[in-house]
């Protein structure tokens, strides 16, 4: 069992390991992972989702479809998938 805050911290750690632009400060929930946001290219974006799959044990297949992938969407996906 993990708390929502612990899951958020784990997601942000994974994000910072892939996105040098993320820095150590707070990240707005609507910040995009790709161009105009954290600047991840397509391969880095998928590698980040693979990191999340391995860390939380849940597939991230649908996250790239539809709305832009943001920090908030990634955290919400992990929170929804992990028992709290």
């Amino acid at each position, binding site marked *: 069992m993990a708390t929502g805050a612990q899951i958020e911290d784990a997601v942000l750690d994974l994000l910072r390991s892939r996105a040098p632009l993320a820095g150590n400060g707070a990240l707005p929930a609507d910040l995009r992972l790709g*161009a105009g946001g954290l600047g991840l290219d*397509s391969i880095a*974006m998928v*590698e980040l*989702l693979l990191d999340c799959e391995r860390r939380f044990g849940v597939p991230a297949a649908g996250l790239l*479809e539809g709305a832009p992938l943001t920090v908030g969407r990634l955290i919400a996906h992990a929170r929804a998938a992990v028992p709290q």
Partner: protein
Amino acid sequence: MSWPRRTFDILERGLAPLVARYPRMAVPAASGLGALRNRLSSRWPSPEQVQILFPHLAPGAAARVAWKIGALEARNRLLVDAIRRHGLEPARRLMRPASEAFAALRPPLILGTFHVGAVQALGAAVERLPGPVLVLRLGALYSPSPPVEILSTEGDDQSRALAFQRALYHLKEGGFVVLALDGFPGPGLRVPCLGRTLELARGPFALARLTGAPLVPLVARWRQSEVEAEVAAALGGTEGGMEEGALAASATRWLEGYLMAAPEEIGLGLVRALLTPPPAAR
């Protein structure tokens, strides 16, 4: 001199309706037109451009290679036009039976193509693969039939990420993924090739690294009025995947060997890519 160009364009367009029914007439005619066009213009490519990439060729031999590249481009234009009009059927009719090496391909496997030879005919080759095939490319010339699916890599970072993710899952589920190693927009892996620098797409090599699937270079070569698919030995395929740069260098060494043996197979797009310095070096 625009009139010869227009005349050649008109003559080529006249051949397009014939290629589906009379390939043995239309393909050699297109070759002849393409070679003559190159010979008259000494352009696309010029013999000098050929000699930069293949300095071992004497001027006369470089000129003959340039004519043959002109012929190759004309055949390819004809084939693209036929595929746009009739779907993949004209390419199927031109494709020779699969070689033993091609028939032995088994998934999960990444097939990496280069813009050499009859690249647009490869759609007719990959539909013979024994398993589901996902083709990643910029746009689509035709609507494929199962087990082949074409996924366009057009769009923003997230669209490309989605295509990349689909390819990754497709390999993990035991399928074939087909995609071009060269001729793509954006930064990639720079590798030496024919004394110049070639920029390759990172995606195919990252797929190999992340899945451990081998990468096999795949090209198609015109044989008179027919097309033959050729595959190289598998590269990579190691536990944990191979480093991207090393894999890209291996693929390019194979391409170099292929083109040194048959310089007339180099596509005009690849000639231009090699002769145009990458952005940072300009």
